[in-house]
């Protein structure tokens, strides 16, 4: 079937239109063209019918036992994260509490408090800077190491 040059420019766009992936402007252009061109309208309807049939295709499911095994493993990763958050939160709370107790302890001189405070602040600062660097690397290294 012969397609005019005008139709050819809509050829690919019809696919995008079918998938709802066009800009509003392109979508309107295609919509108007489909109203006036029987050939492209028919092509669109065929793609639509084909898509519907593919969507309804039946493929065998994964074995229930294996599915359960994999999902449980993946869920345990979620629990791992929650556990880490709990541990870190608890640790931070204890640190804050210890810092407060230390600060209000009247048996220590101001100089002792200042020196120990400086050491703790340095340690925490160093830890945070390493943590920040690690997180930054992890973010920028999203797919590295995945065996392709």
């Amino acid at each position, binding site marked *: *079937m012969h397609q005019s040059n005008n139709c050819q420019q809509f050829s690919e766009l019809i*696919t995008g239109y079918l*998938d709802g*992936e066009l800009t509003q402007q392109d979508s309107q252009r295609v919509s108007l063209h489909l109203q006036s061109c029987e050939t492209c309208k028919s092509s669109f309807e065929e793609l639509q019918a084909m898509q519907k049939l593919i969507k309804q295709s039946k*493929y065998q499911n994964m074995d229930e036992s294996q599915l359960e095994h994999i999902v449980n493993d*993946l869920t345990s990763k979620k629990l791992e994260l929650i556990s880490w958050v709990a541990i870190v939160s608890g640790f931070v709370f204890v640190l804050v509490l210890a810092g407060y107790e230390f600060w209000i302890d009247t048996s220590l001189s101001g100089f002792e408090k200042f020196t120990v405070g400086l050491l703790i602040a340095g340690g925490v600062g160093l830890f945070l800077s390493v943590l920040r660097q690690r997180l930054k690397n992890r973010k920028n290294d999203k797919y590295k190491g995945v065996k392709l």
Partner: protein
Amino acid sequence: MGSVLADITQGAFKLALQLVKQPAEAHDILQDAAIIALSHPAAPHPNSGGFKPWFYKVVRNKSIDSLRKVKRSEGEPFIEEVVPDQVQHCPQRILENAQTQQYIKAALEELPLQQREIIVLKDFHGLSYQDIANVLDIPKGSVMSRLHRARCALKLKLMPIVEE
């Protein structure tokens, strides 16, 4: 069992099956992919939105590894079949026939891997163009043209059936 995770895992298994065509291999691929998802430090969290395309990408890459190993991929080295842009039109009634679903499935299996994967990712798994681009590691702008060529190729595969 987390239903979202179960759905993603089940979908990923079907993707592997659509690519390698062998259930036993698809099971192995899923096992490997799950190990990567659990051990890879940069794996998105299973309940995050980015997990599905990431997991599909791992499954797709593992499927290609598997196909290369057994040298069974008819599409290797993944050169796209040249398909005329203007495909003749199939009579609508054929596409409405119940048997057509089987024909389409068979025609899909005959397509080269590169065309089959993009069609199933969109039409069966319902991924957005952005997610397809992430899974296939291609620019988002290439998805529509590649998908269009793949759909034209599928229509072309269906033509002999239509003409019967």
